[in-house]
């Protein structure tokens, strides 16, 4: 019923100019798998006045590897990434993450750009008809902190405001572990710096900034990457906790490690302490477990999500062992 403009952008510049014109009253749409649900459920008090369709922009749907850099266009669908032989061979964590995202149907629609730019998950925030006007929507309180928070952050709330929602992307931790870069219409951002904990945003992107492609450096020959995900069901579900790791080793010992958890915090959570613990160790259960424990050493679980700490610990452990 609610009317909105729908603009098929033909170039990034055109899309950017439309965004500038509408300010925060426009939304980008690619696969639409997150946005349309939000609009249909009217979870926000404001409805976008314009949707800027990116799918009509040519040249943003590709996977190629040149000079040991994997380039993935922002409009590349998750399923294409999941089955791509190059990605599966050299960038296993990303292929695995894409493959565990949502369901086959949604992976055929959802894009990598959308996956990293998707909105947070919280069943209060996303309740239909803006039933819970939480602080992320400009309201005064976080309903999750006083309600049922079994799927919320175990590492505390966002910096000042106290939103305990989680970032649900499966590909985000893989990109951070693989030390990817996000190319936008304005700049290049390290994947690790891309996500943001501000209450109204999930990324550092400006209002008129569009992700155009992902650049992933090919891991060294002595490195392996892996991705593990914990969810109640084997398909469809967003992660309760997931974890990606990229681990280099020589002579059976870990020489370098990048480990990232997600869905346990308002943005992907780099498990730096686990990285410190595992470097210099061999691939074995006990050391991997010790790294897992280190990863959650700063966990501050809420009343209903204490179990997620154990799961996060296990995910780190298994992600490490998957790289062995």
């Amino acid at each position: 019923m609610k009317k909105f403009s729908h603009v098929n952008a033909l170039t990034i510049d055109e899309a950017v100019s439309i965004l500038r014109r509408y300010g925060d009253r426009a939304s980008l749409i690619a696969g639409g798998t997150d946005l349309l649900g939000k609009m249909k459920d009217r979870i926000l008090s404001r409805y976008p006045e314009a949707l800027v369709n990116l799918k009509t922009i040519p040249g943003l749907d590709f996977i190629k590897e040149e000079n040991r850099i994997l380039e993935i266009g922002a409009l590349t669908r998750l399923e294409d990434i999941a089955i791509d032989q190059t990605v599966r061979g050299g960038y296993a964590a990303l292929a695995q993450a894409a493959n565990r995202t949502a369901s086959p149907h949604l992976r055929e629609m959802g894009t990598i750009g959308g996956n990293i730019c998707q909105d947070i998950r919280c069943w209060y925030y996303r309740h239909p008809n803006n039933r819970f006007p939480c602080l992320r929507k400009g309201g005064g309180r976080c309903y999750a902190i006083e309600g049922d928070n079994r799927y919320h952050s175990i590492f505390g709330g966002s910096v000042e405001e106290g939103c305990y929602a989680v970032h649900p992307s499966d590909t985000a931790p893989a990109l951070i572990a693989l030390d990817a870069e996000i190319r936008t219409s304005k700049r290049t951002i390290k994947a690790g710096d891309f996500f943001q904990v501000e209450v109204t945003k999930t990324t550092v992107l400006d209002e008129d900034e569009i992700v155009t492609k992902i650049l992933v450096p090919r891991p060294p020959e002595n490195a392996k990457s892996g991705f593990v995900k914990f969810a109640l069901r084997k398909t469809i579900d967003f992660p309760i906790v997931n974890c990606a790791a990229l681990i280099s080793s020589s002579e059976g010992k870990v020489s370098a490690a990048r480990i990232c958890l997600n869905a346990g915090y308002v943005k992907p959570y780099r498990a730096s302490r686990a990285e410190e613990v595992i470097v210099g160790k061999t691939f074995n259960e006990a050391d991997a477990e010790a790294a897992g424990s280190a990863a959650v050493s700063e966990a501050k679980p809420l009343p209903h999500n204490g179990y997620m700490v154990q799961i996060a610990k296990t995910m780190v452990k298994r992600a490490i062992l998957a790289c062995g």
Partner: protein
Amino acid sequence: MASDNLGDYERVQEEGKYSLEADIPTITFTEIGKRGIRRMDGYEKASGKAIYTRDMQLPGMLYGRVLMSPYARAKILRMDTGRAEALPGVRSIMRYDDPEIEGRGLNGSYFAPGWVGRQLKRSGLVEDELEGWGLKPVRPVLGDEAWYEGQPVGVAVAADSEDIANEALRLVDMDWEELPFVLDQEEALKPDAPILRPNSDSNLLEDPRQLLEVGDVEKGFKEADRIIEFTARRNAHLWAGAEMASVLVRWRGDNLEMWLREQQPYHAKMLFAEWMDLPMNRITVHSPYMGCSFGERGNPANNPSNGMNILAALFSKRTGRPVKFLYNRNETFFGESGDMMVSYFKVGAKEDGTITAVQIKNVFAVYMCTPGIEHFIDNTRIPNLKCEAITVDVSKAAAWWDRCEQLPNTFCFTLVFDHVAAELGMDPTEVALKNDGYDSRDTTHLSKYKSEHGFPDRDSLRECIKAGKKAIGWDEKWHPPGTKKLPNGKMHGMAFTWDHAWDDVRGTGSAAILIENDGTVSIIGQQADIGVNPWTAYCQIVADELGMRYQDINIKPFDLDQGFALMSPDGSCNLCSNGIVLRKAARKAKKMLLELAAQKFEDVRPEELDTKDRIIYVKSDPKREKTIKEVVARAMPMFASAGYWSEAPVIAWAWHTHGVWGEALETGRPRLGRQSHFIEVEVDTETGTVEVSRVVNVNDVGKAVSPETVEGQMYGGSYLGVGRSLTEEMIWDGKTGVLLNRNLLDYKYATMVDYGPVDAIFLETGLGHGPYGAIGVGEATATMMPALLGPAVYNAIGHWIDDFPITPDKVLKALGKA
């Protein structure tokens, strides 16, 4: 037996009674029991061509939508519909204070004189029969007060499109007074809990069956070597339908026509007629294909069934246009399964596995159906049983028989038997065999019953257990709890449960068989489609009874007003009653057919003839034959001209009642068939994940009329059943009473990749009270599976988690890791 002295009505009644005797087949099975038969509804459904109520379009049709309360309990203080009325495309707005609404309620009186009233009278608790269900008080179809979040309340809209109707609802300006609410049934009984019902001093709902007692449990406890006490909890799960609620209504002068997505269209029509003050004969009901049911559409307190129908009719009357009322997905989440319960168990057992007493206290939330101990009466020899079942009002939609009213029974039955076996360190299959029986009597009494009534003397439970144990490798794999770690690091567990097979002792229906004058056959009788493929089985029965072929038979199930209605599978009994209805009708039609044929043969009497493979032949001289087609060529309901087509049509109808709900023993028919179920799990002790790696279902179906349907039912039941114990759970926010997971992402049905293979094994012992010895299967498997995960997880990790669903957080907690 029908007697010549009987009047026509008396004869119908007499012929329609169930028999206590075994139903030994008298015909040759050609189509019955055959595999590879194409289902009656298969093409339409698989091709997407089937039309459902929601698909229906009529010229000038409007779309109706109703406001759902955003609050768990609230009263409307002020409501301004001005802006909604002004919205272009809005054709009518119905307010709670409109005169048309006055006096129109949800709960009807029709059910009460039935079983509720009868149970009450029998219990001696009351003299008079109740009006309406005791579940929740009779409520207006559109009130100014909401009793739960999601309750239709305040205002409804009819508009040119669904979007406009939705927008109009958003434009209604309202002031609410939020009232105190309570979500948990035990909290609701505490002295400081808000009292939810007006003019009441307690949230305890009146339930006629608060106490069921057999023998003397105190005596049983004294005889026991062990006393086993435990508590269990089952959180609500959803009724789980694919097709969302809708109804389409149009007035034709003083007549009203409706398309109903209803499991029980006849009941819906009765309630509707009552609240609309409309004569039954002025209502025409179409009953198209249905995308689901699972018991959801039989609840008179469930607004989709009644409130929606009434609102659509009122709008249609006002506007003179057809009105289709629709619920969207998240609006179908209000209404729970009937096993929102907290259970307190005390069981006495001897060291050899003999159970001497079972005492249960069940505290239900907004539900009254099965107390939870009846299966101990129906299929065990346990002499001392006591069940106190109380029902408490809470600020949630009414729970109902969604996904089977026997869930409390299977929950209690499985947990008691498996706890006893675990406590005694016994194989649970042995504990089952030790206690099998009925009505406090052992299996020698069952054998006696079987021989006296012509049933084969087979031991159904023993056979079910044997088949299941073999399939799952029980004897090789069964182990003490918490002792088997698999090579993959996970803990292995297995569990077993059992019960009687159901249902074969209830249901009432009617149907006619018309032999068209081209020799094909129409089954005339409305039946709600809830996807269990009964129509194929009906056609198989009619084909074999008439000596015809499956492809000669068709069924016309979509219109209630053709006068005949087959039992909808609401009562867990479908084939077992309807199969007999159709067989009776077919036999009467065959008798007529042979009478007509005898006239054509001229020199033989009807009883000298028989049919086979579309041919009528003389039994003593089978070469003398005529095709059915040539015999009936001139027999037709009407023809405009010429005396040639002057023979009366071959049409016969039958009515049959197979008993009423909840009464097997009362009618002298103990449950003879059994079922056994086995499950294997792998528990990941680091994440708490329970993986169901194998399921073996063994159902004694008595006689499988359609083997593939039986297997389909068992597969479907397993998958839908296991998910209830793994992940399905409705989750409310404690601070607001809002249901948090009202979508199919956060409400987690297990998917087809979430568990391992299922073995569907059925036995055909002939021990059923249904046609040819059949027993039901559809609901049983699904209802048996949920509680079985508990003992399986116990066997894996050595800790009981009697709190369902068994989600990873609970497993980790039991393991001391969360």
